């Protein structure tokens, strides 16, 4: 009896409420029937064992009851998921390595052990973060697979007219370019994020004085670190953009809209970072003037740079949006493609 109880429990635990009760009750009565149906000369325990072995793994039966397999990330996304995961994790590790190397150069204390353990834990944390975020994106995709964000619905009736025309060369988005884009932005943002997190004072003007490397910090460390969520979001948005390119593989209206929305958000975030005058180190320009014996007025030059940085970010965002809009409309319509 013990094995039957355990078997029924193993199948039933995957269900809940009334469904569980029904499945367990029915399965139990069937099992008991099967045991009784066997050769009565066999000992009872052996008949139970034979019956349960014949029924097979409880997981499989439970799966049959559920009506098929269910996936966290299904076959339609799995290959892409693996590819993106490998690329991004590798690039994150690369970005962290570069950032930690930069930090190591400026360490005056020559003991390498704490630096090395810092490096290892940063690698671990970075890989974990990358893994978690990418998995989250793909799980969301899988969940919304029935709604049609990135795939066209599979079950709607379709006609030959729905077959997209083979895109013109200009309408295509090169896979290699998207992959390189993912690698570059991961390297860049990981580097920035690790630097802000672990050595923000090193972001600045670096020069050599009497054979020693000296840094004049450009940013206000605490303000910069407080804006970390902004950087991380911008990073994720840029990855999403490249991943959308990879999925579509060609310009369409939908891709154009996705690109526009993502660009809009990341531009706004970047503006929020750099429009805040407090992120700049107060006497960066004065220090540069004093230390480097510059002959021109670096202070007002620096003021100009700070004044122009937001307009430049806006302009870059606007150009990207216009490009996406243009390509979406130009190549997005089937008749025109």
């Amino acid at each position, binding site marked *: 009896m013990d094995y039957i109880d355990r078997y029924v429990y193993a199948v039933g635990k995957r269900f809940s409420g009334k469904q569980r009760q029904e499945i367990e009750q*029915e399965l139990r*009565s*069937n099992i008991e*029937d*099967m045991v009784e*149906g066997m050769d009565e000369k066999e000992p009872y325990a052996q008949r139970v064992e034979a019956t349960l072995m*014949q*029924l097979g793994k409880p997981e499989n039966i439970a799966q*049959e009851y559920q009506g098929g397999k269910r996936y966290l990330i299904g076959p339609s996304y799995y290959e892409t998921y693996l590819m993106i995961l490998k690329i991004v994790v590798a690039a994150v590790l690369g970005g962290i390595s570069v950032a930690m190397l930069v930090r190591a150069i400026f360490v005056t204390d020559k003991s390498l052990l704490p630096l090395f353990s810092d490096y290892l834990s940063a690698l671990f944390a970075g890989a974990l973060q990358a893994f978690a975020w990418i998995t989250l994106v793909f799980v969301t995709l899988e969940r919304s697979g029935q709604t049609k964000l990135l795939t066209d619905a599979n079950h709607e009736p379709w006609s030959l007219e729905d077959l997209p025309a083979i895109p013109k060369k200009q309408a295509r988005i090169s896979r290699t370019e998207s992959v390189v884009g993912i690698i570059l932005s991961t390297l860049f943002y990981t580097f920035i994020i690790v630097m802000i997190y672990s050595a923000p004072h090193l972001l600045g003007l670096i020069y050599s004085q009497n054979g020693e490397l000296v840094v004049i910090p450009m940013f206000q460390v605490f303000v910069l670190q407080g804006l970390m969520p902004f950087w991380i979001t911008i990073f994720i948005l840029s990855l999403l953009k490249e991943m959308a390119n990879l999925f579509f593989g060609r310009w369409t209206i939908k891709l154009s809209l996705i690109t526009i929305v993502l660009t809009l958000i990341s531009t706004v975030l970047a503006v929020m970072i750099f429009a805040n005058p407090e992120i700049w180190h107060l006497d960066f320009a004065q220090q540069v003037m004093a230390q480097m014996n510059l002959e021109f007025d670096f202070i007002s030059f620096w003021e100009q740079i700070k004044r122009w940085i937001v307009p430049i970010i806006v302009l870059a965002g606007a150009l990207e949006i216009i490009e996406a809009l243009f390509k979406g409309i130009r190549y997005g319509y089937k008749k025109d493609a």
Partner: protein
Amino acid sequence: MKNEGTKVSRDVLDSFLLELKRGTLVLGVLTQLATPQYGYALVVLLEDKKIPVEAGTLYPLLRRLEKQGVLQSEWETEASKPRKYYQLSQYGKEVYDQLCEEWFGISDHLNRIIRGEV
């Protein structure tokens, strides 16, 4: 070398056979459900008629067919132990009739092609 060849083709054959049986599973089950049957009785019935079905596949299948409205069920609690009896619903009967017709068509055509009559 030759042995290896036969072994591989046996695997292939088995997988085709499995597909074939899986395809006719529902039809086989439905043939026996004009009268109410419970899970294990159905396993025995089908086995006697040389259409063996895995019990572990059959029990969940019955439940799925019920959800689809092809079968209707009733718990029989008066006997020494409660059993769930399944039977074709009205809708299920119509499905079954049409399925049979399709089956005759498919098997006729295929048989004739195989025998070289067409």
